[in-house]
């Protein structure tokens, strides 16, 4: 008897919120149909261009409808270094909070196709998705709880690296979160990392590439040093596709490159297999 194939899993857990979009696709130039795009997880059905999406989109995309329980949303960034130029850091943070963004990482528990998980999603819109004390704290607390309660951990990254305005304390978050990733691994808890455009610097050099399985969106830029800085430092011409998800796949850092519409079904299967 042939075993049944995997049950089909919806490409999103619930309806996604609307996001600001250009009138035409930057990939192929066609006029965008907002509703169609929203149903395709903000991937252009014509050319496959992946629009950058915030944590508020990733959460309903991953989490089964009604299952999301956000944690530590009230943990807030403060200006620890008295950072004044070119803009006072405290003002930057307060303005972003007013705009409805809540730090560079949001985390909580939910189910994905019925599997309980911890989910953390970076928000590139919040100071470039930079790893900050609050981001590190939310990540570390979630991982510690996931390790203790044996619940799989799913991460979605989009980050420029560590946050300059929190100085060396932001750098220290790399150690803090990696220590917590070590706890996940020691506890035998699955850790699936989804890398989206862009994932660089201190985020790439800490938790993003430490997944048991690393999944990346097509064309996502992933690396340590940004191409502009590499060119400045070495005068090297970088080949096309340098630091793309496909480049990282070819160089052994990524397990699977998959369109956004197939990521949730893949995670559902992986959760099933690693249960």
């Amino acid at each position, binding site marked *: 008897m042939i075993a049944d194939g995997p049950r089909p899993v919806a490409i999103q857990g619930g309806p996604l919120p609307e996001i600001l979009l250009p009138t035409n696709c930057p990939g192929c130039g066609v006029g965008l149909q907002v509703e169609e795009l929203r149903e395709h997880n903000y991937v252009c059905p014509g050319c496959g261009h992946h629009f950058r999406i915030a944590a508020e989109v990733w959460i309903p995309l991953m989490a089964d409808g009604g299952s999301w329980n956000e944690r530590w949303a009230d943990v807030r960034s403060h200006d620890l*270094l008295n950072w004044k*130029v070119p803009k006072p850091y405290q003002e930057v943070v307060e303005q972003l909070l007013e705009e409805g963004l809540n730090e560079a990482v949001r985390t909580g528990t939910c189910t994905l196709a019925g599997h309980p998980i911890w989910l953390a999603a970076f928000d590139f819109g919040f100071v470039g998705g930079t790893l900050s004390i609050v981001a590190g704290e939310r990540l570390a607390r979630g991982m510690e709880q996931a390790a203790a309660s044996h619940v799989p951990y799913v991460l979605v990254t989009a980050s420029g690296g*560590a946050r*300059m305005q929190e*100085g060396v304390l932001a750098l220290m978050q790399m*150690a*803090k979160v990696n220590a917590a990733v070590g706890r996940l691994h020691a506890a035998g808890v699955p850790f699936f990392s989804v890398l989206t455009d862009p994932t660089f610097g201190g985020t790439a050099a800490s938790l993003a590439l430490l997944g048991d399985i690393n999944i990346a969106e097509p064309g996502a830029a992933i690396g340590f040093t940004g191409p502009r800085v590499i060119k400045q*430092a070495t005068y090297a011409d970088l080949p096309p596709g340098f630091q793309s998800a496909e480049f990282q796949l070819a160089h052994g850092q990524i397990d699977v490159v998959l369109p956004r519409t197939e990521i949730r079904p893949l995670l559902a299967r992986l959760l099933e297999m690693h249960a």
Partner: protein
Amino acid sequence: MSAREEMTPNPLSVWQVIELARHQDRPYSLDYFRRLAPDFIELHGDRLSADDPALVAGVGTFHSRTTVFLGHQKGRSLKERVARNWGMMHPEGYRKAIRLAHHAAKFGFPIISLIDTPGAYPGAGAEERGIAAAIAQAIMEWFRIPVPIVAAVIGEGGSGGALGMGVADRVIMLENAIYSVASPEAAASIVWRDNSRKVEAAEQLQLTSRDLIAMGVVEEVVPEPEGSASADYDAAACALDEALQRHLAPLLSQSVEQLLQHRYDRFRYIDSLIHAEPHFGPKID
């Protein structure tokens, strides 16, 4: 000096400290190793593909105990700087460090790590060979190494490239060393998109030893001899030797469980150790 108030006011500007930290006459890791452990034997290679000359490593006798030494090594002449890649490690360097950390673990040797790097190498080859993952794996692995580790920032502590060698039970810092999330040039390039604003960036970043001890990121600032470490290698090494031994000694009697739990807690709560200025502080609820 273990507290900010015990330090005399520093007459140097932040940029002058950075110039001292980067000075080509400043003692480098090998200058210290030869003084801390005159019988130091250098060991090479990551056992995978290469040896990274930006990281020197080996074994030596430190206070009558065999110790694994690791340290970034810059060069003084142009030829040596090129050979050492200005102390900027490639992925092979982090793999070499972890290979020797496992060596230390096998034989129960403590580890001394000296940090002196502008950062990991920002080049295409490093990216192709997985510099981000090499640093990430090293940082994670340090938390599992079951022997005492003391790190000292002796010159430049630049970014993730420095942190990849800086996960330790105690982290100390020479008086005129710096430790930063990014070099002032890189920070200026990121924040202003203009790396000529490096002096302003440096002043914002709070990267001197005074700032670092105030933030609780290092346990101790080791005073340098008159005229900085560059002026008297023996005196600088002597002060470093005394501080390293003082921090290492109590770690040697700890159980592995205590040691690893303390190392975890040290970095887990590092941002809540801030204890100096009123505008610093753990403001996380």
